[in-house]
């Protein structure tokens, strides 16, 4: 405290929260611990790569098709390959139609026998999409015709 300000215990309480927040800032990237010191450390690229999951796209129902179920944690989408058999409009969205979905990507009048890909951009910090905690990634088809492909993603729990 500077000399001009009368000491106030409530300011000490606020200062304690500042100290805690500074620790949170320093260790923002991860909840993993260094086995030697027990201190949190950032997650490595190798660990991220080991966490990658691949899921097949095999949808043929008009309306909502759940591609990634409503898992706990944030789903980070790094890579997407899609093949459409019949011309139709495709919509990628978070959540289900009718319950406030967040539309991510709309492919209007997507042609027949055509592929589409979102490649890995080289950075695990910049996924194409982030699907919120407890929300599903849904592909909405206009017609009951086959759409194939795969998605590579990772589930981020906590701050890891």
């Amino acid at each position, binding site marked *: *405290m*500077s000399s001009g*300000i*009368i000491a*106030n215990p*409530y*300011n000490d*309480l*606020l*200062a304690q*929260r*500042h100290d805690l*927040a*500074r620790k*949170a*800032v320093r260790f*923002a990237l991860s909840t993993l611990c260094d086995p030697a010191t027990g201190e949190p450390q950032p997650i490595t690229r190798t660990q991220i790569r080991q966490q990658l999951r691949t899921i097949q796209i095999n949808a043929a129902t008009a309306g909502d098709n759940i591609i990634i179920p409503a898992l706990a944690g944030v789903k980070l989408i790094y890579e997407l390959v899609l093949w459409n058999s019949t011309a139709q409009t495709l919509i990628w969205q978070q959540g289900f139609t009718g319950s*406030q*979905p*967040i*539309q991510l990507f*709309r492919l209007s009048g997507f042609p027949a026998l055509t592929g589409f890909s979102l490649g890995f951009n080289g950075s695990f910090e910049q996924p194409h999409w982030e699907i*919120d*905690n*407890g*929300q599903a990634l849904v592909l909405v088809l206009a017609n009951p015709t086959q759409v194939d492909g795969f998605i590579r993603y990772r589930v981020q729990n906590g*701050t890891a």
Partner: protein
Amino acid sequence: MLTRPWIDPRDVDWTDPLNPLRNPGWQQNNNPYVWAALKDPMLQALRQGKGIEPRLYVCPDPNSQTIPGNSTYDYEVPAEPNCWLFALNASGSGTDFLLQITDSVTGAKVFSQPTPMSLINSNLTGTSNRGKLFFLTTPHLFEPPSYPVVRLINTESTAKVCAVNLFTCVEYDTA
């Protein structure tokens, strides 16, 4: 008067009229919505600490800005250092927006997933055009150099207005 229970004046917190723990009139049944927030030690400290000033941020700027349909809009709040977010409310022309507030440095989110604006819209859940506040259970500190990032998601197909008011206070550096 004689039917009223006598309250020892020494039990009353005369410095803080909003202190539910020390002011007998403030029972949880009187106002269950803010009781938990007002008794939080950090919010009490903000009420009674020195060098605290309110800052109210209206988001986005200008607040009449429309957000295109099915799109996400991020507004980086030009907050001063040592900003404490303790309450918020929202209004807009859209029937339901989604809202998220993120700490720009730690990535900490106020809501685990974007929350519907209808939950914090004072026009829908209270008297129209009255300043109802939705208090966080404990205020969130944006430790410098952090600032709040307000994410607005228009889930409708047409452009809409969504305004969010952040009720914050800043703490002068008393170190």
